[in-house]
């Protein structure tokens, strides 16, 4: 602690779990946007990742509320958000956004897309799995051409509804931070937009990495055309994301309001490594540069794949650092603008590093089960 800080600011109220929450929802929104590229914008090259992106979005969405539940305690009370909704609370209304996105967008779209496979699997499988698939068919095994055509059209409409829903899902997280006018580090109308674009960046990078890793693990060849297309989208969206973040930064520097000196000091001291080094240099400029090289120079396929893998990992590190700097950074300085505190990351506590690691890995476990139940892989993959 340095200089003058109010008593209620000594301990940070929002821990690493609150960092994890926007990171996870960002991956959900980004993965869904990647899926919509194929469905709505007919980008055929990214087709191998379509189903994987949907399952990834579902896996991460199922885990996304857990950091909040663990942070707040009393998870049973979260039900009251639905039973007695408080319309003036953005956080409370988000429960409905979450439910809408989970049930109407993701579950329904996955069900419609997989319906043919589910019906076929319900016929070919045996034992307990057969019962599961039978339940999933909802008692209808009509997979006639016309029925599947109807599924395709309805799925398309759901994806169209899903795109603004994905924006709403993650824009809301930025909205919560951006509307806290008492905190100059957060209070910015650009916050929801920056969150949406950073979500797209992280989700696309995550699905690209998952696709590359899982395809390799299964012993199949990664579709170069597919990863090339994803990397191109990642590159352009990253540029927009970085431009928005820089616009926010330049605006803050030019405006230089009463909080500027305090925030500037923080960026040059306690946030120097996580913000400048990790987020901007390592997690933003380096992947943009790496992806930019692949767009300009004709590199060999193995080199390109390696670059995509490195750029994807760095992107995830950078976006996590961005969430860290927003959530933790916003609590490191005093409202007096004259003092600073520090965040001690615990290891084994309810809101410690161990819990954060478990919560980050948990969606991968769910994805494993989902991928076993509903294989997202294409029939004609090459080895």
């Amino acid at each position, binding site marked *: 602690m340095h200089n003058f800080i109010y008593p209620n600011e000594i301990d940070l109220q929002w821990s690493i779990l609150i960092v994890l929450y926007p990171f996870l929802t960002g991956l959900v929104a980004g993965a869904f946007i990647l899926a919509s590229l194929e469905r709505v914008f007919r980008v055929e090259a990214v087709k191998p990742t379509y189903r994987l992106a949907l399952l990834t979005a579902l896996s991460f969405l199922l885990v996304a509320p857990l950091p909040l539940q663990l942070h707040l305690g009393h998870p049973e009370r979260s039900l009251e958000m639905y*039973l*007695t909704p408080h319309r003036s609370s953005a956080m409370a209304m988000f429960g409905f956004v979450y439910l809408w996105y989970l049930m109407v967008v993701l579950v329904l779209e996955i069900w419609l897309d997989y319906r043919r496979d589910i019906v076929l699997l319900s016929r070919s499988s045996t034992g307990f799995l057969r019962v599961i698939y039978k339940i999933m068919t*909802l008692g209808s095994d*009509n997979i006639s051409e016309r*029925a599947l055509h109807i599924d395709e059209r309805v799925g398309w409409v759901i994806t169209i509804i899903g795109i603004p829903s994905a924006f709403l899902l993650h824009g809301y997280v930025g909205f919560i931070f951006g509307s806290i006018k008492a905190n100059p580090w957060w209070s910015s109308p650009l916050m929801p937009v920056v969150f949406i674009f950073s979500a797209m960046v992280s989700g696309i990078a995550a699905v690209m990495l998952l696709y590359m890793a899982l395809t390799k693990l299964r012993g199949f060849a990664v579709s170069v055309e597919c990863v090339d297309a994803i990397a191109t989208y990642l590159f352009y969206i990253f540029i927009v994301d970085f431009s928005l973040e820089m616009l926010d930064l330049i605006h803050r520097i030019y405006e230089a309001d009463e909080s500027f000196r305090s925030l500037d000091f923080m960026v040059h001291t306690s946030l120097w490594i996580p913000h400048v080094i990790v987020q901007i240099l390592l997690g933003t400029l380096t992947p943009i540069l790496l992806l930019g090289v692949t767009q300009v120079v004709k590199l060999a396929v193995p080199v390109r794949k390696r670059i995509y893998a490195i750029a994807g990992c760095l992107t995830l590190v950078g976006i996590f650092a961005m969430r860290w700097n927003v959530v933790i950074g916003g609590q490191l300085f005093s409202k007096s603008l004259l003092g600073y505190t520090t965040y001690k990351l615990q290891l084994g506590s309810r809101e410690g590093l161990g819990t954060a690691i478990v919560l980050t890995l948990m969606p991968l476990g769910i994805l494993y089960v989902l991928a076993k139940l509903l294989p997202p892989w294409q029939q004609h993959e090459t080895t």
Partner: protein
Amino acid sequence: MNRFKDAEHLVRVAGVFLLGITLFLCFRAWFVPKSFGQYGHYRADSITEIAALPVIHAGHETCETCHADVLEIKKAGKHAGVNCEACHGPQGKHAEDPSSIKPALPDTAVLCARCHEANTAKPKWFPAVVSAEHSQGLPCNTCHTPHSPHIGDKK
């Protein structure tokens, strides 16, 4: 008829959603207390329920009727504005039956530190000490009178 047959699964999924919504509404009707929302975003019955709870604090006026001597000491010191039950805890039962229910004396080594332990967040004018260095574990009332803690000339 055929047209409907090919969209039957959509009717089924809509049925599942409808069933879910109906079950939710039934659960809500059963779970949410009837008086919820009568005055605001809370259960109106809670007002009467809370009002019916036994009073556990006596209030400093009640304490002062018997402990006038302590009031005189307190009035002259820095703790004049601190309510009796802030340190002694709720004393409603003691006030009702002072002869048989005697409150335990607080452990000053713990109690005083709650406010007076040094902390960088505390304003400079507020008396605060690092108790481990200041008193080496001795109770504060070894030297200070808790009701008027200043040692030396009274201001």
